């Protein structure tokens, strides 16, 4: 085993474990911090897959943006002193059952499909390709998603804003 592979599996284990913490932790704040680890792990996978731009984007958007948002969400919906309080959960058995079913489905698909890694590309920076693509072939989705983002932004601001006459 090469060092890279060792590292890979190490990261994989860490990622999966932290994802497990996200899933099973009864304290929301723990989940949030575990999610951080998961997301960073994913960024690492992206590096392995030669997606340099995405790895950076992952860190910046997910870790720097979404996660912070989520943590804010946690903070604002729970008083500081009860962040450690156990949150109520649905039925563990049923949830596990659902998870298992999903696992079975995915497992079946993964192991039954004949994956042929047909292409093996040399690793090279993808940023310029991505840039070219979103301004050519992916221009329309790009524009649409921009508008969507804008809309979501405005919507979020509108929703989260306190009405003047409310309190």
């Amino acid at each position, binding site marked *: 085993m090469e060092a890279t592979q060792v590292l890979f599996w190490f990261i994989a284990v860490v990622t999966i474990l932290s994802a497990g913490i996200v*899933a099973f932790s009864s304290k929301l704040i723990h989940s949030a911090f575990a999610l951080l680890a998961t997301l960073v792990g994913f960024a690492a996978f992206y590096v*392995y897959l030669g997606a340099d731009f995405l790895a950076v984007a992952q860190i910046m958007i997910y870790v720097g943006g979404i996660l912070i948002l989520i943590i*804010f969400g946690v903070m604002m*919906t729970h008083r500081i002193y009860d962040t450690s309080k156990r949150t109520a959960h649905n039925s563990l058995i049923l949830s596990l059952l659902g998870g298992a079913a999903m696992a079975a489905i995915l497992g079946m698909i993964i192991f039954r499909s004949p994956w042929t890694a*047909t292409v093996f590309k040399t690793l090279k920076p993808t940023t310029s390709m991505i840039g070219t693509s979103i301004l050519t072939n992916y221009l329309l989705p*790009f524009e649409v998603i921009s508008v969507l983002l804008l*809309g979501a932004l405005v919507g979020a601001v509108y929703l989260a804003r306190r009405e003047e006459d409310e309190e």
Partner: protein
Amino acid sequence: MIQLESYLIISAIVFVLGIFTILYKKNAVGILMGVELILNSVNLNFIAFARYIDTYINGQLVAIFIIILAASEAAVALAIILNMYRDRRSVDVTKMDEMKN
């Protein structure tokens, strides 16, 4: 060399954990985290396929859009959650049943 299947399995495990999170948590923020997990696992799949199967990087591009989508979704969802909390001092989704019946 790391096999494609490795990524798929990791992704699948995270996906399953995401599903489990959604099913298990009552807390809206928790559910949101589950969704993020699912989206990330999907992203991983896309990027992996882009690396191993596609001749171009279409997977990466889709992943970019998903990330943006996730960001929007998180923003809106959190806004809704905040509103919800403000209204009833609780983020328990099982209690959100005004529109039932």
